[in-house]
């Protein structure tokens, strides 16, 4: 069981008043709040350990380097990577996916090949592959969705073929909350010799994820969606894959030997971390991982499952409200997306904000899926460890008031 009252105390922002009400933060799929432990670690990084990493022989530089590399070790352990070399620090999930697109996609796909994604992808796992497809003439294929907002797996045999070079799939959808059965998709992809990339931006923060068990080749996620600062993202890739991969950015630090005409590459992961890295935010991510590990990721998932079960039960009762995505909490993360008859999500969002309730409205970086549903925008409440049933009650009251107001 999670002690929510205690957890809330760790988050200074939750004491904030918004429009004369306590902030009720339900926009966690966009970004999460930070506990004081993480905030303090950032302050400490600047006040005590600020120095460039991997370069200096002086004490503070060595300390900064150690903190940076300890953070990498924590990330590796958190997702059960075989070694810390398999963890590359990037800015965010989008940068991680672009790294794969540029370094792997442009060099390893050709006309006649195909890349498979799904209709549920966030723009960040769609647009980079559109780019690769346009450049290399590899075909971009889509796993379709069912009316429930789940992936239609009956199409896998037809879509994933001997010409498939990469399958890149979102683990948990930020649009529908759907927890996709990525294990099945990974097995299918590997049976035809394809690489597999998992967009784990909405899964790693919310449930146990084990990259060795999944056996995926790439996995990407962002620190800011799991209590850490917004400047740090993670690209995981298997050592064998990274060894063969071309660098993404070239310059300082990622090289071994440089002449005026040529250069050789440093070992992994440094080969993919050109220039001075963000050496502050990874430390914050390490502390965030400690915080989540203390709670236990099984407990985080159970808590969010309880919240989404409660929220869906209440939302379904509201006349004119349509839930977007599956209604089975077993296959749904803590993301409650909905639309209301005749009331635009922006009006809902503005109205709820007047009660201190923060939700997301819009297309949530999933325009094509909204177009498929015939909606231009939806409203989305998404939960994390500091949310409780009371927050959901306030949300439901707010929605009922919106409906009454626009009646």
């Amino acid at each position, binding site marked *: 069981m999670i002690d929510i009252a205690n957890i809330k105390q760790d988050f200074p922002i939750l004491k904030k008043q918004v*429009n*004369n009400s306590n902030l009720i933060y339900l926009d966690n799929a966009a970004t999460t709040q930070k506990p004081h432990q993480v905030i303090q670690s950032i302050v400490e990084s600047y006040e005590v350990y600020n120095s460039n990493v991997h370069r200096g022989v002086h004490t503070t530089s060595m300390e900064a380097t150690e903190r940076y590399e300890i953070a990498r070790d924590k990330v590796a352990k958190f997702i059960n990577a075989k070694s810390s070399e398999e963890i590359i620090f990037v800015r965010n999930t989008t940068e991680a996916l672009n790294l794969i697109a540029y370094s792997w996609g442009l060099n390893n796909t050709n006309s006649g090949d195909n890349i498979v994604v799904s209709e549920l992808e966030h723009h960040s796992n769609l647009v980079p592959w559109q780019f690769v497809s346009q450049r290399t003439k590899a075909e971009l294929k889509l796993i379709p969705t069912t009316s429930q907002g789940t992936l239609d797996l009956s199409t896998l045999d037809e879509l994933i073929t001997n010409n498939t070079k990469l399958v890149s799939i979102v683990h948990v959808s930020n649009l529908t909350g759907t927890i996709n059965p990525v294990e099945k998709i990974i097995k299918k992809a590997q049976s035809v010799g394809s690489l597999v990339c998992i967009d784990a931006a909405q899964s790693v923060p919310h449930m146990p994820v084990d990259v060795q068990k999944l056996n995926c080749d790439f996995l990407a996620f962002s620190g800011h969606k799991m209590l850490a600062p917004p400047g740090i993202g993670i690209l995981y890739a298997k050592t064998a894959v990274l060894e063969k991969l071309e660098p993404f950015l070239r310059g300082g630090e990622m090289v071994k030997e440089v002449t005026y005409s040529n250069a050789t590459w440093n070992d992994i992961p440094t080969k993919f971390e050109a220039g001075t890295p963000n050496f502050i935010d990874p430390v914050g991510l390490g502390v965030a991982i400690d915080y989540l590990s203390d709670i236990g990721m099984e407990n985080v998932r159970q808590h969010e499952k309880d919240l989404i079960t409660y929220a869906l039960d209440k939302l379904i009762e509201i006349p004119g409200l349509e839930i977007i995505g599956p209604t089975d909490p077993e296959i749904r993360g803590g993301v409650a997306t909905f639309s209301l008859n005749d009331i*635009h*999500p*922006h*009006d809902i969002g*503005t*109205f709820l904000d*007047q009660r201190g309730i923060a939700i997301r*409205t*819009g*297309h949530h970086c999933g*325009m094509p899926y*909204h177009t498929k549903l015939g*909606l*231009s*925008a939806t409203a989305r409440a998404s939960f994390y460890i500091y949310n409780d049933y009371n927050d959901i009650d306030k949300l439901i009251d707010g929605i009922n008031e919106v409906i009454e*107001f*626009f009646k």
Partner: protein
Amino acid sequence: MLSNELNDLYKDVILDHYKNPRNSELLEDPLYKARGYNPFCGDEINLQINVDNNQVIQEVGFQGHGCAISQATASLMTESIKGKSINEALEIREEFRKMMQGENINLELLQDLEILEGVRNFPVRIKCSLLSWSTLEDSVS
């Protein structure tokens, strides 16, 4: 209880224009037309205008979908520009923009549109209110 800001944003007149938009029929053979679209929220306005020989707006129609503010503004705008010349309509547009930015305004030009002043207190919603005006400009340019 609604806060004062919320009451200013969603005044009864605004809600009335949202629920019962004026000039909401498209024209048969419009001289000027444009589609305004805001990809961020999906608000859409299709605006059509007919003028006489003196460039005075005789007929105006719109259809669209989106939030209350975007659709109510479109409805109020069509009422305000009917009978005005294209140039006068564009002057009203400029005055409306000024109102959204909190600058001094000429109420004689804006007239009923002053009711939308409360939108100013909601910075992310200002673009909802400006959509129909940029569509107007696109249609005649």
